[in-house]
């Protein structure tokens, strides 16, 4: 498994934000995306995850290999922690719910309704979801937002285990994620110069 991105251009709201982006990410490697607000970190992750089409360029991996974790964790407030996680495990066809609960220190909260979780606990549940997807490449958007110091360490351990098992992680973040071995990619040099409206599709002609 290796993600190779060649000459990629991505657009948000019909305006190209990044272009000429090429990088590769092999098994066992982690890459942190940096760059100022609005540079296109989230847009890049959503494009890789297959939620929106790329304006130009080539990808070597199908979106089916990737697990995307967005700002929103996709948690249902009226379900318990365990029910939320079991749902995502069933959707992915995986079963390692107990291991995921343990890895993100959620075992004591398993019967708690998600509505009663703190922001950091919700984020931990969102990250535990990654473990039950069984996908190789994790696309993480600001994964450590609202996590306390101990949970950031926990997150680092989970990512390292994933890398050691032949996975890979692509993370967008402004803060130190506590994963020292991760390479850093600054997106600012790839900012699109001609931010003209794309004539790519009819829906974008109205933007």
């Amino acid at each position: 498994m290796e993600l190779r991105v060649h000459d990629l251009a991505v657009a948000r709201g019909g305006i190209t934000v990044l272009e000429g982006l090429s990088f590769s990410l092999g098994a066992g490697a982690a890459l942190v995306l940096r760059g100022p607000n609005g540079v296109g970190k989230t847009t890049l992750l959503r494009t890789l995850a297959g939620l929106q089409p790329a304006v130009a360029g080539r990808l070597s991996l199908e979106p089916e290999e990737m697990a995307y974790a967005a700002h929103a964790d996709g948690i249902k407030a009226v379900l318990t922690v365990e029910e939320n996680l079991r749902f995502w495990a069933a959707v992915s066809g995986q079963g390692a719910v107990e291991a995921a609960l343990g890895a993100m220190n959620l075992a004591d909260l398993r019967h708690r309704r998600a509505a009663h979780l703190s922001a950091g606990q919700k984020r931990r549940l969102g990250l535990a979801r990654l473990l039950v997807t069984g996908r190789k490449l994790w696309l993480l958007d600001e994964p450590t937002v609202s996590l306390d110091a101990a949970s950031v360490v926990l997150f680092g351990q989970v990512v390292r285990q994933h890398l050691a098992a032949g996975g890979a992680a692509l993370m967008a973040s402004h803060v130190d994620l506590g994963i020292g071995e991760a390479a850093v990619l600054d997106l600012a040099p790839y900012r699109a110069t001609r931010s003209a409206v794309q004539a790519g599709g009819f829906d974008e002609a109205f933007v």
Partner: protein
Amino acid sequence: MLALLTRDLRLAMRAGGGFGLGLAFFLLVAVLVPLGVGPEGAVLAKIAPGILWVGALLACLLSLDRLFALDFEDGSLDLLATAPIPLEGVVAVKSLAHWLVTGVPLVLVAPVLGVLLNLPVAGYGWLVVSLALGTPALSVIGAFGAALVVGVKRGGLLLSLLVLPLYVPTLIFGAEVVKRGAGGLAVGTPLALLAGITLAAAALLPFASAAALRVNLR
């Protein structure tokens, strides 16, 4: 797929899930119409099929804007779109869940409300049959409308305007089945057309809904 169905049903049953919203609305319509129209049995018997079908249709419409909007707001829709199950399947399962939560209770309670509206005895069976055949179309067509307006703040009004014209054929043939059944006439033609609409909508619209969702998730 099954996990998604059980999750949606569970969400509907828990507090604030919206189960019973359509049912309560249907009940109100059927109780209030006789009070407004007056107690003449002949008049009520004449309008009963139409009122019951309009009530069922509006009750379905009431809960539609939550169908994808809730999943969109908490990010589940993004995650479902990237999950291993096809988005067409997600739409079909969510429509089915909507029908089980909204349509099936309406079908079951409709004969009771038929009493309030003085529906002729011969019409009860056809009322249940026509609603059972027609309400799946309401859920599937409604899911298409909900997919079109997902991400639009206060999309409920737009959703109603988009979906109501698409509901008209189902309403016409559904009410016609009950009207003819109550009058002792042959119901074959409207019943076949009603079933045809439902089957066509269930076969084709999930693809259109999934395409609309993909555009809206960009």
